[in-house]
């Protein structure tokens, strides 16, 4: 550690900041609204956009594959190929085309999320009890009605677990997006890595972890609320 002030100029350093303790609550709260909150909000935005797009795309592909079996192989091939390309490498490939932009980040994030979303959703659709589908067909529901009234509702647990895994994964990947755009908690972490000041590093890192845990918990809760029937046996 050097004797120099650890950060160039953040005003009058408190004793905690001057000592560079592992976490200075005063500094953290003082910079919440200018530093942490905007980064957190950007992080949430990038994640929601990526998971939302990825989910819609993967859901459409999974439904198509469920209806038209031949579509499964090419779709899985593309999704798994995109999944095997590390996000950093994908950024590298995209920057010459789409520049240092949100678009670059989102394309890479969506591409990375498709595989898990597609396979989990398709499995969910395929695992719907065949009795229920047969009964629905026999009662004269159309293919579309069976999809919306029987198959998708029964696949909700799979949809939710796909969303949970992908959201947590994407929150982590968004942090790497700081190499491309100056946004999100990742850019704070990147800055913190280049300086020995602990509060910035621990504060932004902890926020990323807290965000992942919160998102996971909220999705879990939403899933529970959407599937009262799945718990009915226990409450009976």
């Amino acid at each position, binding site marked *: 550690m050097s004797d120099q002030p650890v950060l160039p100029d953040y005003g009058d350093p408190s004793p905690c900041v001057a000592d560079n303790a592992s976490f200075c609550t005063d500094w953290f709260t003082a910079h919440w609204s200018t530093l942490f909150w905007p980064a957190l909000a950007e992080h949430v935005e990038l994640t929601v956009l990526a998971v939302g797009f990825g989910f819609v795309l993967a859901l459409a592909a999974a439904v198509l594959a469920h209806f038209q079996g031949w579509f499964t192989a090419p779709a899985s091939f593309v999704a798994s190929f995109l999944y095997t390309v590390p996000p950093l490498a994908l950024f590298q490939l995209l920057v010459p085309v789409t520049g240092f932009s949100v678009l670059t980040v989102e394309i890479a994030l969506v591409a990375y999320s498709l595989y898990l979303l597609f396979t989990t959703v398709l499995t969910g659709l395929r695992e719907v009890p065949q009795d229920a589908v047969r009964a629905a067909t026999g009662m*004269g529901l159309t293919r579309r009605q069976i999809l919306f009234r029987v198959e998708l509702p029964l696949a909700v647990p799979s949809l939710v677990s796909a969303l949970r895994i992908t959201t947590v994964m994407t929150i982590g990947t968004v942090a790497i997006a700081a190499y491309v755009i100056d946004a999100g908690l990742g850019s704070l972490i990147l800055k913190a890595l280049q300086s020995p000041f602990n509060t910035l590093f621990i504060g932004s890192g902890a926020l990323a972890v807290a965000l992942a845990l919160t998102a996971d918990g909220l999705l879990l809760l939403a899933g529970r609320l959407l599937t009262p029937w799945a718990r009915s046996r226990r409450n009976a």
Partner: protein
Amino acid sequence: MSQDPSTAPVGAQEIVFDRVVKAYPGAAAPAVDDLSLTVPAGEICVLLGPSGSGKTTALMMVNRLAEPTGGDIRIGGRSVRDMDPIELRRSIGYVIQSAGLFPHQTIADNVATVPRVLGWAKKRTRERVAELLDLVGLPVNEFGGRYPAQLSGGQRQRVGIARALAADPPVMLMDEPFGALDPITREHVQDEFLALHDRIRKTVVFVSHDIDEAVKMGDRIAVLREGGRLAQYDEPRTLLKEPADAFVARFVGADRGLKRLSLLRLSDLEPAAAGEDSAGLPELPAEATLRAALSLMVAQGTDRVRVRGADDTRLGTVSLDAVRKAGAA
């Protein structure tokens, strides 16, 4: 049991299988081969046969879950080929072995399935659901809000029947509907369905591989053999008395004489006057079957039973000989 066509209820419709063939693509032999039979309106026809004899296939051709590769099926005189499959299915009740209830919907929502796709008004649907759940002994107040996982197997099966009846279809198809139930529950649900059928009088095609169930439920029984060919189509008592060939005889079982007796009741016989000597005889109600009477006589070592009528009146006695004659008649 079987009834005069003139008393056939409005709404029920005759089903005709006319030289129906179903060959699945790639299969060496047809699953159903040249099947012709007529189910009169309002009757229960049981399709009986060993596994793989094409019972399910025959049933699924009625609501076009499978398309015949030859011949024709007519409901109320109209060929099913001329009907839109979706409309056709909405006009036919369909019950399968596992009930096939939608696990994510409440009992009331399950029963409301067909009225909803038919676009019934909310109030009418709600009233119909309540009426049907009452009909199958599951009052909507207690059971309507539950999920299928919160019911017993027998209750789920009854919901399956209520759901199939929702739009008051003239025809019902039931594929081993009670096959997954334990014997006691099965017997109970069978009795309930028969009582229900007495009131609603739909034309029912009922698949079973259990001869006892067939004899109990069927106005007529169609015995299918492997390869989906019809071996015999008759009323239960004829089937038991005169099996058409060795296959049917083996299928109905060596105890077909006893099964026949279970179709007859003491009240079907003319009791002999009970003399002084009838005091120590075992007694049975008039609605008991001849099979029960025979069993009692064998167990007690007597050759007569006393018949008790309603209000405990004594109607007389029935002898072993009379039972034997009735069984052979």
